């Protein structure tokens, strides 16, 4: 089982972060995402994927680049 599998789906105001092996972190729930100056980064959808490979062209979101840049996660 990976970390992703152990994360239950959130209820109401619960926030969960699911680590996808060799890929992004899936964020569910009403978390605010802020940039380095504390400004809100608008979320366009209920569930978002945060890049953790560093290779995305649309930070902070994943754009699938992790599949072609050889990124390997621990979880």
């Amino acid at each position: 089982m990976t970390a992703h599998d152990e994360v239950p789906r959130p209820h109401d105001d619960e926030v969960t972060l699911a680590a996808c092996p060799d890929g992004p972190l899936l964020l569910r729930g009403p978390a605010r995402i802020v940039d380095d100056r504390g400004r809100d980064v608008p979320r366009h959808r209920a569930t978002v994927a945060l890049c953790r490979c560093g290779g995305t062209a649309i930070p902070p979101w994943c754009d699938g680049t992790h599949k072609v840049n050889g990124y390997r996660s621990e979880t």
Partner: protein
Amino acid sequence: MSSLPVRETGSGPTNGALPRGSAPRGAAARLPVPRPRGPLSALLLTTLTAGPPPESADSWASPLLWAAEEAADAADDPLRDDDTQLALAVLYELHHRGVERVDDAWEWEPGLLSARRVLEVPFEAALRRRAGQPVATESDAAGFARRLFEFVADDDGPALARYLARRAGREQAREWLALRSLYQLREADPHSWALPRLAGAPKSALVEIQADEYGGGRTGRTHAELFARTLRGAGLDDRYGRYVDVAPVPVLAALNTMSFLGLHRRLRGAIIGHLAAYEMTSPIPSRLYGDGFRRLGYDTDTTLYFDEHVEADAVHEQIAARDLAGRLVEQEPGLRDDVLFGAAVCLAVEGDAAAHTLACWNEGRSALRAPLDDPEET
């Protein structure tokens, strides 16, 4: 962009008033009656447009069944046979949005279902031959998802996306939009047929993906509507099914594959595998498509559809592989081969449509059955 019910096409051959009998934009428009491509589709369309189903099926059901049997026998490769693929597309359309001038009562006519069955048996056999049956030993969600990612990574689908990014001219880009419009104006619909057939974790995962496909419930934000904007931005007609007559047979086969897998509950694993493979092959090509349309000078309203898919499908592919396909296989290990077949058939038929398009362009000709500026086609 204006929200008035006004056609917003740019320059191009497709300006003009709505033809009589077609629904206003925004309503669930029907497929325009296509031109027949052989004896079976000719008989089918004549039968359907003659009026509501007659009291007795004697006059039409047997001739149609014979025509279906003959056409199926005559087709060397069902996936490349225009007549039977168009007939299937029309029959399936009765379950989607309907066909102009065809009475809704035809949808569940047993005679039509019999004829469809005659076409579906060789169609399914051809799909299975074409796609092959990938194998997996994993039946836990994480392991199966890993296997799916490996399988999909072997696909070299992006060749067409790279061509559009770097080399395609405006006419080719517009042709490609016209071809995609058959599916993209009903985007996500055939996969939604799986919803009532699932339960538990995979059902929730499918809801999570489809909610996003349908714009999170916000009017005007469904992916189909974003694609309609792209069509208008490129000076094309955004009416549902408008380009059916110019669609070459591999495009119809890819479209029919989704309807076939989606309508048959026994193939629910396969439509889920299809969705997973579709999502998993979308983020990187979507970026290339967006690059291509930007290179050609199209505005942000036109490229929004592609930008949305870079971001959305990077989410969807994770949910589709792990929580949807993975959890489904974990829940019902007997569906594992079907899920893999669905993924394989998605890559195969979508790849065939892309390969056909690229081959035509490399030979310097239109990828459509008639070029977009052909006055016959307006």
